[in-house]
């Protein structure tokens, strides 16, 4: 477009542009309106269905929302003197929860690493099996941890190991996907350079790809570690040991043990927030120098 005419072209063109644009605007408004309408309908009817299928109604229950925390907090406040002792008592359970998260993140990251390298075009050792590895990681990602954990608890009994395996499997799938997005953008030139010297696949990955992707991989793994601490606490609820298990018992006992529930809650909450902050700090540092 280099014609610098300011005098205007023929009015017919302008007219037709005006009318076609107006039509386009109308159409867009219509679609936009429809989308909005569908969304609002979905939200409203969805809310109504959920409200209807819930034991208590939303509006009936709203004023009671503070009852349970109030019960717990008032009892915990009464017995506040015992809180430090209880925190100490449950500290080993906390360590177990963190251990579950850490081990499963480590194992999952290793699994994700292989899944991503084997499932990325240009890097895969067996290019024809790429779809296979992608499906594997999709499936591993899709399985909620609780499913595997429950089954393993069944076979091996309760404890940290089922949770660890369950979380590791899910982590491997989830990281496999995130990792392979990073790996797809990796520069293949070094890999080719290494290939030309007769390096094996593992050497090419180790020297050609890993140094490039490591900061992102570590950053994603840290993020996953955060998520896994929660997951490991949740799995405790279904018998997989750690803090979640203690919390569930304390809550199930009800009044009389609410102080324990409060103590465990403080530990859990503190841990989650602590690792959240630490990991986001390090993640920022890792990805910082990548802008250029």
């Amino acid at each position, binding site marked *: *477009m*280099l014609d*610098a*005419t*300011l005098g*205007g072209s023929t009015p017919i*063109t*302008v007219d037709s542009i005006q009318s076609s*644009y107006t039509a386009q605007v109308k159409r867009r408004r219509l679609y936009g309106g429809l989308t909005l309408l569908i969304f609002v309908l979905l939200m409203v009817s969805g809310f109504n269905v959920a409200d209807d299928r819930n034991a208590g109604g939303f509006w009936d229950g709203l004023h009671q929302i503070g009852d349970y925390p109030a019960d717990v907090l008032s009892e915990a406040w009464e017995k506040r003197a015992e809180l430090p002792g209880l925190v100490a008592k449950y500290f080993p359970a906390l360590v177990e929860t963190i251990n579950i998260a850490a081990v499963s993140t480590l194992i999952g990251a290793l699994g994700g690493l292989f899944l991503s390298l084997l499932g990325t075009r240009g890097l895969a050792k067996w290019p024809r099996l790429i779809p296979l590895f992608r499906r594997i990681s999709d499936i591993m990602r899709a399985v909620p941890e609780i499913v595997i954990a429950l089954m393993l608890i069944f076979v091996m009994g309760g404890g940290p190991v089922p949770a660890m395996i369950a979380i590791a499997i899910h982590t491997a799938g989830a990281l496999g996907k995130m990792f392979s997005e990073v790996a797809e953008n990796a520069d293949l030139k070094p890999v080719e350079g290494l290939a030309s010297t007769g390096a094996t696949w593992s050497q090419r990955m180790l020297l050609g790809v890993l140094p490039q992707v490591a900061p992102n991989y570590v950053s994603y793994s840290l993020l996953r570690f955060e998520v896994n601490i929660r997951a490991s606490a949740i799995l405790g609820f279904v018998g997989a040991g750690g803090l979640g298990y203690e919390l569930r018992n304390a809550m199930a006992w009800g009044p009389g043990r609410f102080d324990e529930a409060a103590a465990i809650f403080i530990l859990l909450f503190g841990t989650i927030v602590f690792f959240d902050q630490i990991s986001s700090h390090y993640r920022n540092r890792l990805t910082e120098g990548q802008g250029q």
Partner: protein
Amino acid sequence: MLHIEKLTKRFGDKIAVDAANISVGQPTMIGIIGRSGAGKSTLLRMLNRLSDASEGTIQFEGEDITSLRGAAMRDWQSRCAMIFQQFNLVPRMDVVSNVLHGTLNKRSTLATMFNLFPQSDIHKAIEILDRLGIAEQAPKRAEALSGGQQQRVAIARALMQDPKIILADEPIASLDPMNAQVVMQSLRTIHEEDGRMVIANLHTLDTARRYCDRVIGMRDGRIVFDGTPEQLTTGVARDIYGAGADFSEAATSTEIETLDRQKVIA
């Protein structure tokens, strides 16, 4: 009609614009030149009230611009359009919508929230685009256009405001020579046909000489030159740019351009 008096802008210790005095009696096309950091952008931003002056006054047709607040200030902004080096369009919205942003000040907040603009405005926007020769681009997203086209969209948005003054902050610094010429020509035509005042920061002397009625030179926040293009000799330019005897116009103009480019990338 426009009187700027002792206009000063301080950023902490740094004085970006230092007691600038400008007086313009009638719609003129004014070019402001000066090297990077001279305070050109700052001056224009104070005029548009994108930033507040530290001291001094701006008077436009007897009205004190510097003291305007709230709705009155926004009303002034709608009368004083601004064009930016980086176009500052909304890249994900289509061209007409971008042009229509020029009417935001006049429209109710509620209607605009849903992107509802009157039919007449839409037609006017397309006419303006046509005047600038880019009517066919009307339904495209702004980001899909070339730099020169985007700058013309920005000019269209400015025209949509139906402003008394158009400020242009290095409007052609990001454009190739061909597009730069089209954009400058458009601004000149608007000035001549509509009788609007145009104040443009420019980074090349030849552009200023070619399109402007009056050239203002700034150096370190001060106005060091104010005169006709003819008065702008190489010696004066050397002064403005603070260059030595080895100053050659062509070299300087590219040098400044390079600096700008770097700023954009960083």
